């Protein structure tokens, strides 16, 4: 959970001691185990390190610069979308439409520049604004019209998909010549995406665990009635987090277009969205709301990317990969549920 996640070591030590934690080396091992149980990212971090060691031992090419760039480019889009999904999941919602915001945003930039003569920078900003607006609509349907977000965003996702296909005739487009210059820092440069991802993850982990917005997001997901009765503006939190997710979707759409140097109607869709949610869940975010971490989701996204890349390097067929992913999600979820039961069992009185 976000609270335990960002706790300083001295505070962890201040927790009521778990019965049976003795001194000596065995006690130290047990203490490490207790920290792992408390700090959700720690578990997925250990998994990530073990995976890196395993793939590096079996396929030395795994840690070459080219391959690290490759892994970073698989990780980054998933991690950035996962930031939004973590905030939504923590406050008790979900966004299935974000992959279609992703798909539409570079097309919108292309239309604005090539058909309406809008300056490139403004076109990029307007495409990001489209993502925020789509998020607002998702929030409106969920909060004001009371349609569960799973269904609301299923609907808006289809609509965005249809708008993108209709306006583009399902043909790919080239990056507008005028936008080539600004594309470097958005996604063309090899390390651009992972840099964005790391900076955004750092910022939004702080937002989640150290600001009122984050605290209220946890409160809304933990006990929506209680949060409202305490005076938390539940609607504002939900709108804001849908808009955040929409923004991230639009940003990743632009990044991927610049990186691949093409605007492709088949990019985006459900795959990056489900990977983002899988990454969030593996990283310790509860689908039921109330707890989650952005860093955990980043590590989750990395684990999924490392698996994908590593199996490819070893030469294992990509076909069984979904089995591994599915198992990883289930193991992570089962671990989460059981660990929170253990935490609750540790009542102080």
């Amino acid at each position, binding site marked *: *959970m976000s*609270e335990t996640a960002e*706790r300083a070591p001295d*505070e962890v030590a*201040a*927790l*009521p001691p778990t019965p049976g934690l003795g001194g000596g080396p065995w006690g130290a091992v047990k203490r490490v185990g207790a920290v792992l149980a408390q700090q959700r990212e720690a578990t997925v971090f250990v998994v990530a390190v073990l995976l890196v060691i395993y793939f590096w031992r079996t396929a030395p090419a795994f840690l070459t610069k080219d391959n690290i760039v490759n892994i970073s480019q698989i990780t980054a889009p998933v991690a950035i979308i996962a930031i939004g999904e973590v905030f939504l999941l923590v406050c008790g919602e979900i966004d299935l439409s974000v992959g279609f915001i992703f798909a539409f945003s570079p097309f919108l930039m292309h239309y604005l520049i090539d058909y309406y003569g809008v300056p490139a920078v403004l076109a990029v900003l307007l495409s990001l604004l489209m993502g925020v607006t789509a998020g607002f609509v998702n929030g409106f349907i969920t909060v004001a019209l009371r349609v569960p977000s799973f269904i609301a965003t299923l609907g808006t996702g289809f609509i965005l998909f249809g708008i993108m296909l209709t306006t583009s005739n399902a043909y790919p487009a080239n990056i507008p010549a005028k936008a080539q210059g600004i594309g470097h820092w958005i996604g063309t440069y090899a390390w651009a995406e992972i840099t964005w991802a790391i900076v955004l993850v750092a910022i939004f982990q*702080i937002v989640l665990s*150290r*600001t*009122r917005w984050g*605290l*209220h997001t*946890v*409160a809304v*997901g*933990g*006990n929506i*009635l*209680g*949060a*409202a*009765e*305490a*005076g*938390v503006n539940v609607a504002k939190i939900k709108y804001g987090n849908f808009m955040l997710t929409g923004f991230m979707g639009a940003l990743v759409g632009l990044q991927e277009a610049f990186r691949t140097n093409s605007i492709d109607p088949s990019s985006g869709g459900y795959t990056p969205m489900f990977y983002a949610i899988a990454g969030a869940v593996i990283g310790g975010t509860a689908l039921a709301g*109330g*707890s989650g971490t952005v860093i955990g989701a980043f590590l989750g996204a990395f684990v999924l990317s490392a698996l994908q890349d590593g199996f490819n390097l070893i030469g294992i067929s990509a076909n069984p990969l979904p089995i591994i992913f599915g198992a990883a999600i289930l193991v992570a979820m089962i671990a989460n549920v059981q660990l929170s039961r253990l*935490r*609750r069992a*540790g*009542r*102080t*009185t």
Partner: protein
Amino acid sequence: MTAPEPDGQSPVGGPAAGQSPVGSAAAAAAEGSLLQVEHVAKRFGAVTALVDINLHVHRGEVLGLLGDNGAGKSTLLKILCGFQPPDTGRILLDGQEVHLKSVDHARSLGIDVVYQDLALIDELTVYHNMFLRREKVIGPLLNNRAMRKIARERLDAIGIGLKSVDVPVARLSGGQRQAIAVARAVYSDAKVLLLDEPLAAMGAKEAALILDLIRDLKQKGDLSIIIVAHNYGQAIEICDRINLLQHGEITFNKLAKDTSVQELNDIVIEEYRRALLERQKSA
């Protein structure tokens, strides 16, 4: 449920009511009170939750609001704390009419509430719960150090034995949770504190913790408290004055020292008898 108006019953301030002394004397006493409720009514579709509520609480007074399930206690509380507006009637704070727009707004005016369902967030730590919506910040960031320290001091002052304010409240006992919820409201510069069933589902030991806490608050003298309660004995023990809510109206208003569990029981039993009689008539 649609509450039939009891025969001959009339709102406080009207012609003297049949069974209880809530006539013009009470209306006179209402003058100069801190919080005053006049002719408040609330319907939910076909259900009339509150018919005509008139009550008041003085500065530093503890008012017990008793009544059966469905009498309208929770609805009244939700109106007083700004969670929902009344259909008609008015609320006066310090003699000034106030329109409570939200829980936040009511709180800014000094009316704070501790709900039966506690409004605590299981996933958040004790100190984050205590400061929810009133967080201490440095710029955009939470000042956790300050909140932890103040929470520690306040809970120590109340005397609840809590090892750490860093644990999620999910791990605490019912009494500790209730104490934290009360402490949260007390330290919010509240003038009027509304407590919804503060002793519900609590063992004797835990109830004692809360009763002590309320007694402490009473001694400080400047906080008015309205306690919604089920248990007549506890209410008489802790409150200065008792109001009885029946069918969406206040039908009884006496100082706690002038009434007894027996008297309150008799009134309620009388009411059951009348309801039974009406049922038989209509059958």
